[in-house]
């Protein structure tokens, strides 16, 4: 049992609206940068986004093609498993529904993969019906490299490690295949409202 450090509260801020902050989370007003590795820098001329795996044929978009797709601007709350939450973040990107339009699959799961080798797994059902995007702008500005630019996955209803930075594609899979953090003990689903941080939660 650790002794209590008299007077210690840390960086945490009092929660004004508990209904918006999941259990165990604290509000932040900055935007912490977390990373498992160096920031990749893929030139936009070489960039592409691909949907592959349990599909008839892989489908791919170049950067210009992605930008030409109908986009949405959304304001969402985001929750990091390291306990910070940030409310009312504004993003612009292409809905996964748009990208999956015309893609036939029996797969129920997805592995999102990124430059630098990062992967994370999600249920396909968590990415459809307006709940996920490939986002390329944050706060009205192009997404910065340290925050995942040029484009990252955005799945705000799950812990933010599922919103893979530097995303380059989705592989549709019949089974749920643990991605990077999931392999080391993080939860396959990751619902912050159920506090699904670790396998077994």
């Amino acid at each position, binding site marked *: 049992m650790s002794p209590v*450090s*008299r007077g*210690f*509260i*840390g*960086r945490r801020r009092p929660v004004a609206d508990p209904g918006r902050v999941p259990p165990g989370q604290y509000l932040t007003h900055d935007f*912490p940068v*977390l990373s498992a590795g160096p920031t990749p820098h893929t030139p936009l001329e070489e960039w592409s986004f691909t949907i592959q795996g349990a599909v008839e044929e892989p489908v791919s978009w170049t950067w210009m093609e992605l930008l030409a797709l109908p986009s949405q601007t959304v304001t969402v709350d985001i929750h990091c498993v390291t306990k910070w939450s940030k409310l009312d973040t504004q993003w612009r990107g292409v809905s996964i529904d748009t990208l999956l339009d015309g893609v036939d699959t029996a797969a129920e799961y997805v592995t999102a993969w990124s430059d630098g080798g990062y992967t994370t797994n999600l249920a396909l059902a968590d990415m459809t019906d307006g709940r996920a995007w490939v986002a390329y702008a944050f706060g009205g500005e192009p997404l910065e490299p340290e925050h995942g630019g040029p484009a990252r996955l955005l799945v705000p209803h799950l812990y933010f490690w599922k919103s893979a930075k530097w995303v380059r594609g989705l592989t549709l899979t019949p089974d749920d295949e643990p991605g990077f953090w999931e392999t080391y003990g993080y939860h396959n689903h990751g619902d912050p409202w159920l506090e699904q941080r670790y396998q077994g939660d």
Partner: protein
Amino acid sequence: MVELVEETPRATSIVVELPAWPGHRAGQHVDVRLTAEDGYQAQRSYSIASAPEDPHVVLTVERLEDGEVSPYLVDELRPGDELELRGPVGGYFVWDASTGGPLLLIAGGSGIVPFRAMWRHHRASGSGVQLRLLYSARSLGEVIYRNELRVSGVDVRCALTREWPAKFQGHRGRIDQELLADVTWSPDQGPLTYICGPTAFVEAAAQALVGLGHDPRSVKTERFGPTGA
């Protein structure tokens, strides 16, 4: 915790009394863990600023702007408070008198802390090894252990990067290869170099030394930076 000593407006030394302390080597660090009443915990590493021969273990902490642990240690901690420490740890970035030299210590900002343990150990052990310290700080006001360095007789060269007094005799601006060439021994004299500070500082200095012909294996580095999320 026994005593707090303000080193600079942003850095404080914490003198601790540790009943079961096994002793340590100069350069090692400890992990300090804080626990809030509701169980919330945060942990950070701090280099030991005291020599193995000193009567108490001393940690020097610099308050980081948006820090989680350092503001508590620098602003809130009071004599009599308990601190949870784990350590000492770190067997790589250590210098014992038996390691030899000549010894060049290159510090950026709070990277000076483990070197205080080293120069004090150097003194206390009566080592005949030549020791030189190159210390880069933003301004004179941010030079930690300034008084101690002045009276200690340690061969120290100072570089100030942001502001300096009009009559400043040291190096103005960041450390560069030219300054290093001036300060270090030649590679064939087999100097051992330790570099400690922020990543960018450490890597620039290490690269410059290798560029001057020093064997990379004679250069040990410890990078300081944000940890935890």
